[in-house]
């Protein structure tokens, strides 16, 4: 069992720091932002829906890998910006791709930890004899939740979709896992779209715009992120996750060829790398021209690292996702 191929697709429209500097005028310094968060430009879904981005990434995977579509027997789709409350986006994508109707398909709702969870579900399905070839789609259009005058999140998030193929032939060694998971729902309020679902349906009241202390504008219908709290959370759990995962896998830091973390922003990742003590050359950064694409960042980074020759067959990677929920997960993958 191993990851056979990764492809990704980003919407065409981009939003650069210079675009934002023009919009926000004196309140925003393009160079300072880049230096701090390491993002120059993000891709923004306009008319494209989550299912469309997911299908484009999957089509790219089939054409790049040559893997026959009809062999996919399970489709997993991770998103927090689905096409509809119901039906399930994975069902829509099954039809768009023309996958077999004997294929299992479901969505799961996670953010930055979603890719690692997806690998765990795929491993479980394969190990349990329920599937052989799993297509994992991690796709997000967070920017649709973002108020145009909320610099705090508009600067960071971008849209995108990644398709990852996990396959197994009889007798194959398992190259996915150990895993480690964590959850702390106390952090739910710190990264949230408060209104729109059943706890707080959208209304005139929820659409009321408010200005926060930093001058950012948003309503309850929009994405809200408490940056300092999220930062504290990551300093608390990511170093321990790395340590515990290494212990569980009976590995040391030196045994890992490349660390691929959720690409939240450069400042956060630099702080974490420094705290954990990971050498710079073993730590992959990949957000400059994409921003934070939530559950798609890790497979996108893996694909870019592969294309740059930073990952070779046989390399051992540590993947760690952390964020909204709070939810976090780490795993060791042999490429």
């Amino acid at each position, binding site marked *: 069992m191993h990851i056979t191929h990764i492809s990704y697709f980003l919407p065409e429209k981009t939003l650069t720091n210079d675009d934002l500097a023009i919009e926000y005028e004196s309140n925003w310094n393009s160079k*300072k*932002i880049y230096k*701090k*968060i390491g993002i120059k430009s993000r891709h923004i879904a306009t008319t494209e829906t989550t299912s469309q981005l997911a299908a484009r990434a999957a089509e790219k995977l089939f054409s790049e890998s040559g893997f026959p579509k009809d062999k996919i027997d399970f489709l997993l789709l991770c998103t927090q910006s689905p096409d509809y409350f119901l039906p399930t986006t994975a069902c829509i994508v099954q039809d768009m791709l023309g996958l077999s109707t004997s294929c299992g398909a479901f969505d799961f709702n996670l953010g930055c930890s979603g890719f690692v969870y997806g690998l765990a579900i795929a491993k479980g399905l394969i190990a349990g004899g329920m599937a052989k070839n799993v297509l994992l789609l991690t796709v997000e259009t967070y920017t649709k939740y973002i108020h145009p005058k909320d610099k*705090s999140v508009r600067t960071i998030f971008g849209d995108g979709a990644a398709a990852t193929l996990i396959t197994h032939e009889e007798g194959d060694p398992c190259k996915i896992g150990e895993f480690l998971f964590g959850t702390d729902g106390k952090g739910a309020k710190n990264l949230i779209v408060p209104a729109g679902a059943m706890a707080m349906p959208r209304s005139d009241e929820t659409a009321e715009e408010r200005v926060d202390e*930093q001058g950012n504008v948003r309503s309850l219908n929009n994405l809200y992120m408490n*940056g*300092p*709290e999220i*930062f*504290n959370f990551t*300093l*608390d759990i990511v170093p321990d996750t790395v340590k515990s995962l290494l212990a569980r896998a009976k590995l040391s830091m030196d045994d890992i060829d490349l660390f691929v973390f959720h690409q939240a922003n450069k*400042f*956060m990742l630099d*702080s974490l790398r*420094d*705290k954990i003590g990971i050498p710079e050359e073993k730590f992959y950064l990949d957000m400059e021209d994409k921003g934070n694409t939530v559950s798609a960042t890790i497979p996108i980074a893996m694909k870019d690292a592969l294309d740059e020759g930073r990952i070779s067959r046989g390399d051992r990677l540590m993947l760690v996702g952390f964020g909204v929920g709070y939810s976090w997960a780490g795993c060791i993958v042999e490429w």
Partner: protein
Amino acid sequence: MDLKDKLSLIAQALDAEPEALKPETKLEELEEWDSLAVVSVIAMLDKHFSVRLKPNDIKSLVTVEDILAHMKEKEAEKS
């Protein structure tokens, strides 16, 4: 670590000139004091003083002195 070193660490975190910072300087009056600066101060205190700011600590940061207070606490503990 003397006052000058601490002010220089704060200046570095805020991306400000060290000369512009005095203990009585009000953070809100600094152009550099934004959400990114808050996160940088959290990181600086965590790295150099093993001090973690809680939500209420962050809200009660009014002057540079308030940041300095967190930098002293840990040093006292160490000695």
